[in-house]
């Protein structure tokens, strides 16, 4: 099962490598990892997408909690939550037909074309991981020059939150 684990971690040198090292040392899957400071500059928020059996996910959360730098942790997938990822994608768009089709697809997916040259479009698209995947699938007829994905971030819905 796919899980999205959110972590509040001390914003200190080496904190990221402790988390990354834990995943490689214990052979856990890691699909994506994002990290940035929060409104409190001493804390970073990290979002990890991982997968495994229930037993493995339980171990992952326990092992993460055991890291001395980890302050708090929440498995977002245990409750209602919002998942977002941003993608920047550069597509070949030189003929009129290509330009029209890419623009139409971007509109359908509620993306924005943020850079235009005579031969390319660059589209910004935000959504759940699966939506970004579908957009890439939808571009099958076109030539994708470059794909940049931010990795997944997420937040719990409603009153529930991950804060100190």
């Amino acid at each position: 099962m796919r899980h999205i684990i959110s972590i509040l971690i001390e914003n200190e040198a080496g904190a990221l490598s402790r988390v990354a090292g834990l995943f490689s040392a214990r052979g856990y899957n890691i699909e994506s990892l994002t990290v940035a400071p929060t409104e409190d500059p001493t804390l970073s928020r990290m979002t990890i997408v991982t997968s495994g059996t229930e037993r493995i996910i339980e171990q992952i959360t326990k092992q993460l909690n055991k890291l001395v730098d980890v302050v708090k942790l929440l498995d977002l997938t245990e409750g209602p939550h919002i998942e977002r990822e941003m993608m920047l994608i550069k597509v070949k768009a030189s003929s009129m037909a290509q330009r029209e089709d890419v623009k139409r697809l971007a509109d359908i997916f509620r993306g924005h074309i943020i850079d235009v040259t005579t031969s390319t479009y660059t589209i910004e698209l935000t959504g759940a991981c699966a939506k970004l995947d579908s957009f890439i699938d939808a571009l099958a007829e076109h030539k994708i020059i470059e794909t940049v994905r931010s990795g997944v971030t997420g937040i719990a819905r409603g009153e529930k939150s991950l804060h100190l």
Partner: protein
Amino acid sequence: MELSGGEILVQCLKDEGVDFLFGYPGGAVLHIYDALYNQEDVKHILVRHEQAATHAADGYARATGKPGVVLVTSGPGATNAVTGIATAYMDSIPMVVITGQVATANIGSDAFQEVDAVGITRPCVKHNFLVKDINDLAETVKKAFYVATTGRPGPVVVDVPKDITDPNIKIPYHYPESVQMRSYQPTLKGHSGQIKRAVELLLSAKKPMIYTGGGVVLGKGSEELRKFVRKLGYPITSTLMGLGAYPSSDQLFLGMLGMHGTYEANMAMHDCDVLIAIGARFDDRVTGKIAEFCPDAKIIHIDIDPSSISKTITVDVPIVGSVPDVLQEMNGLLESSKKSPDKKAIDAWWAEINGWRGMKCLSYDRNSDKIKPQMVVEMIHEITKGQAYVTSDVGQHQMWAAQYYGFDEPNRWINSGGLGTMGFGLPAAMGVQFAFPEDTVICVTGEGSIQMCIQELSTCLQYGLPVKIVALNNRYLGMVRQWQEFFYENRYSHSYMESLPDFVKLTESYGHVGIRIEKPEDLRKELERGFAMKDRLVFFDIVTDQTENVYPMIAQGKAHNDMHMSPYCEPPQDPERELS
């Protein structure tokens, strides 16, 4: 009081009550060594190799329950210490290791004797720190001791760049009384509801089993454990790491369990209906085949580390908390409970267990014309009246020491259980001897292991450490040879030690006493002669039977009821059980 970084470090150690500092000087720590000069409070012990510094600090910690402290230089000093740090990590030993580092400005420039010590040690420490500002130094040291000694203990590395200890830069010194870390708050008290459930389950058991581990020793829970076991009258077994927490001479104790555990302990594990694991982590050497581990048992698990619970074996009643706290609460409940154990069922269970005991699984050939290693261990037990501190290296001799010495007190059996580090025994014995100068400290070792840290004989001379080294010399890497005999059709690939030194002369050249024992009839006399030399280090080079194996043995990946048995034990009393 204004102090330099080097002086601050030494003052922190004094304020922390550190009496011994095991170390080795070098460029990056020279300022610290200068601060150590001309002071008596922290006694620095100069080892001959940084690995030995960590093992000595580790042995000291295991015997005293206090953190071991190490000081090594950057680069090779740090990398040499890694084996000892990993050893302590695997067995959850509290240790603070201060590593020198190149000056802050040179970090990352591939400077002379630079390694990323924080990076290299990260997977084998509980936590580590790089001190980048002298103003953080004292607090970081306090945090290091706090993290190392609380919760599930473990080694903590503090990497200190050379410029931080510069004698020309002085700041006001303040050592915090305590530290608070919002990200680190270990749980001590167990969940009362779970504890109640556990007690009810225990009292309803027909075939109960108590399985204890190193957590009882580390948590100082031996006293509560003894009350708990005696109150219930249930059988108890222990892992290699937990030996001594419950007296091995007690009738309720079935001996060690696991790969080289006793027949009765392993059979009782296999057949029990309620198992309580106390401060033990279901290591693969204990569980054998996971799918067939305690197949009929409801399992209760007490551990201070939540990640130990349901890691390999799913448990029914998990309790996160420190062993003595949880056991104390359980003892209180047992006392006030109206229910008591099912006497009839427990008597029947004991009758079954006593049948297994009847096999006398630790029997060996007592009439051999060769010296049997088991006999050596039994004899040193007699000579020291079971009161010695015993360290060991890793291999057959380690298992024989664990099986035959018979530990009645915690903190007396000191060995590298998790990592299985050859070379651990002698330096660990030094650490113990420093802590307990009046006690007998024995290092049970083999001719393979002892050569991995033999240079420490020199340290022992310098500090007058009268360690007794009992080397069971079978001219083989015995445990490797045993596996090759059992599982590789006697192909003894590189398990034979050719060109052994003359250990007696070697020991003498280090200024100690060496005694070689070749015949069984000389064994007692020569051991007694050596042990009588109270203030000398004596190296017993004991020529033992080359073909002796450690029994019983559960092959890797087999179940508890599937054991290789010694040819000398009694026939099974339960004919339905097939022995391999």
